[in-house]
């Protein structure tokens, strides 16, 4: 009996591993609440889901909005950019989040989607701190990630093989990196790259693997890794904001159709000076309106 139970448990655990990691989409769409954003105050619920890059920022923005209008409740969920697009397109959430441009194929599937860019985020090329280089050209970065340059000596470093670290397929950060560095029709990222499933895991891997190179959202930069300048431009929020730094992606919130009522009020708040101040405080780049 105990072995049977054990085996059943094994099956269950496996099955959960296979299906359990799936993020739960919001159960029901919340009906657009009180369409009159009266001076007296707003009330109601908003459900947001999607990109894990946008998630911490969205939480802050939700918190600030709820502090202003205590009757408003905003739920922020993760799930990933693709989940954000899908759930907003299908109307299972009020607002979806994507840390990349919405793809043409997605716009075809969900033609009602309206994209609201709420902030911008730079992607830094990072190397292990012992790599004795300060910067690369964009072409060099592309050739390294495509597997055409495999030794640091080819880009002016020591004679050591390069360890490429990347994100998994489908990641918003990877999609933005591929589009802006590898090029839309460019070569794929080399097969032998170590793939890690989050910004944090990429940072740990690059920090602990000598001769490694990877890419990270600006929000995840810290002294454990070395941010390389690209074409001589340092990876700083200032450079990204002024448009000199070449790898910058939009952080988008998505609605099905033009937003109204409470959702519109929240989006307006995010794009107001007050909301954009929070964006900057969180280490992202404010959008110029």
């Amino acid at each position, binding site marked *: 009996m105990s*072995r*049977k139970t*054990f*085996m*059943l448990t*094994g*099956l*269950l*655990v*496996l*099955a*959960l*591993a*296979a*299906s359990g*990691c*799936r*993020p739960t989409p919001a159960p029901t769409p919340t009906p657009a609440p009180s369409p009159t954003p009266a001076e007296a105050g707003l009330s109601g619920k908003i459900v947001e889901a999607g990109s*894990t890059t946008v998630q911490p920022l969205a939480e802050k923005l939700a918190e600030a909005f709820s502090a202003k209008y205590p009757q408003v409740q905003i739920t922020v969920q*993760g*799930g*990933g*950019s*693709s*989940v954000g*697009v*899908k759930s907003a397109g299908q109307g299972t959430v009020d607002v979806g989040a994507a840390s990349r441009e919405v793809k043409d194929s*997605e716009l075809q599937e969900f033609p009602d989607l309206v994209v609201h860019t709420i902030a911008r985020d730079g992607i830094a090329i990072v190397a292990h701190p012992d790599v004795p280089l300060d910067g690369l050209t964009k072409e060099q970065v592309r050739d390294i990630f495509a597997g055409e340059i495999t030794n640091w000596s080819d880009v002016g470093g020591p004679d050591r*093989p390069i*360890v490429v670290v990347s994100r*998994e*397929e*489908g*990641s*918003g950060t990877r999609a933005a990196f591929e589009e802006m560095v590898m090029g839309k029709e460019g070569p*794929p990222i080399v*097969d*032998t*790259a*170590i*793939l*890690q*499933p989050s910004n944090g*895991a990429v940072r*740990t*891997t690059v920090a*602990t*693997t*000598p001769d*490694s190179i990877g890419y990270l959202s600006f929000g995840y930069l810290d002294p454990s890794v070395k941010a390389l300048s690209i074409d001589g431009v340092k990876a700083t929020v200032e450079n990204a904001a002024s448009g000199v730094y070449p790898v910058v992606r939009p952080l988008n919130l998505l609605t099905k159709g033009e937003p109204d009522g409470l959702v519109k009020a929240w989006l307006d708040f995010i794009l107001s000076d007050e909301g954009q101040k929070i964006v900057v405080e969180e280490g992202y780049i404010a959008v110029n309106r």
Partner: protein
Amino acid sequence: MRGRRLSSRKGTSRSIVDRSARYLLLLSALVSIFVVFLIGLFTLREGLPALREIGLGSLLTGRVWRPQRGEFGLLAMIAGSVLVTMGAMLLGVPLALGCAIFLAEVAPDRVRAVVRPAVELLAGIPSVIYGLFGMVVLVPLVRRVPVPGNTGFGLLSASIVLAVMILPTITNIAEDAIRAVPREYKEGSLALGTTHWQTIVGVTLPAARSGIVAAIILGVGRALGETMAMIMVIGNSIIFPKPLDNNPLTLFLSQARTLTGNIAVEISYATGLHESALFATGVVLFVLIMIVNTTAHLLIRERAR
């Protein structure tokens, strides 16, 4: 008369309790089976579009996995899962069997009282902790092996982590099997003048064989299903593992990706056919584990006979 009625009434209420307890237990058993059934059905249903569109054949034999470009081949991941499981078995099985024999045959009770809970404790450590340990301790160690292209992340690190993780599973079941060998066998052997070790090797272990094999197979199932720790140390590269230089053993320094890792790494961002293909990966895994566990189950039943 009055006494009989009282006792019969009491008897009725007792039998009600008894019966309802029985149904309640039956219900919980049914619920667990139902859940397994539902999960299997759900995985299959979600994976069906991919199975239909890509085809089981090209899914199982395709060597390239590039979902964004519409290529879905699981062969590299199947190889990764099989190789890492083999590696874990090579390292873990001798260790686990040694441990089981020690606990069942050699250890004095006082030592056993310490070792056994310690081994069982291994089963209670969350797999993310194993992964973290592997990532910050094992991977840098493995990286010291001077082979070009060795990053430390790969099959060897993953096999070592996995070997430790399956240790309690194999040890516990193998120890039970060894203990279940009738006393008479051992006494007979010892009476013939063999030493303790000769008895263990020549009599006890052969008699416990099917139970030990079942233990190993359950370990295989555990190894195939492990996810989190694997993601953290195996590198997750979508390549068919191959030796890094002329020495075939460097195969184990190659990065790889497991079937479980494939699902866990990509599911949060997957949509459409990609998502369905990941569920199809789950179906492949499900079938694989079911085969493994059924084999173990049959072997255990054979032993019971």
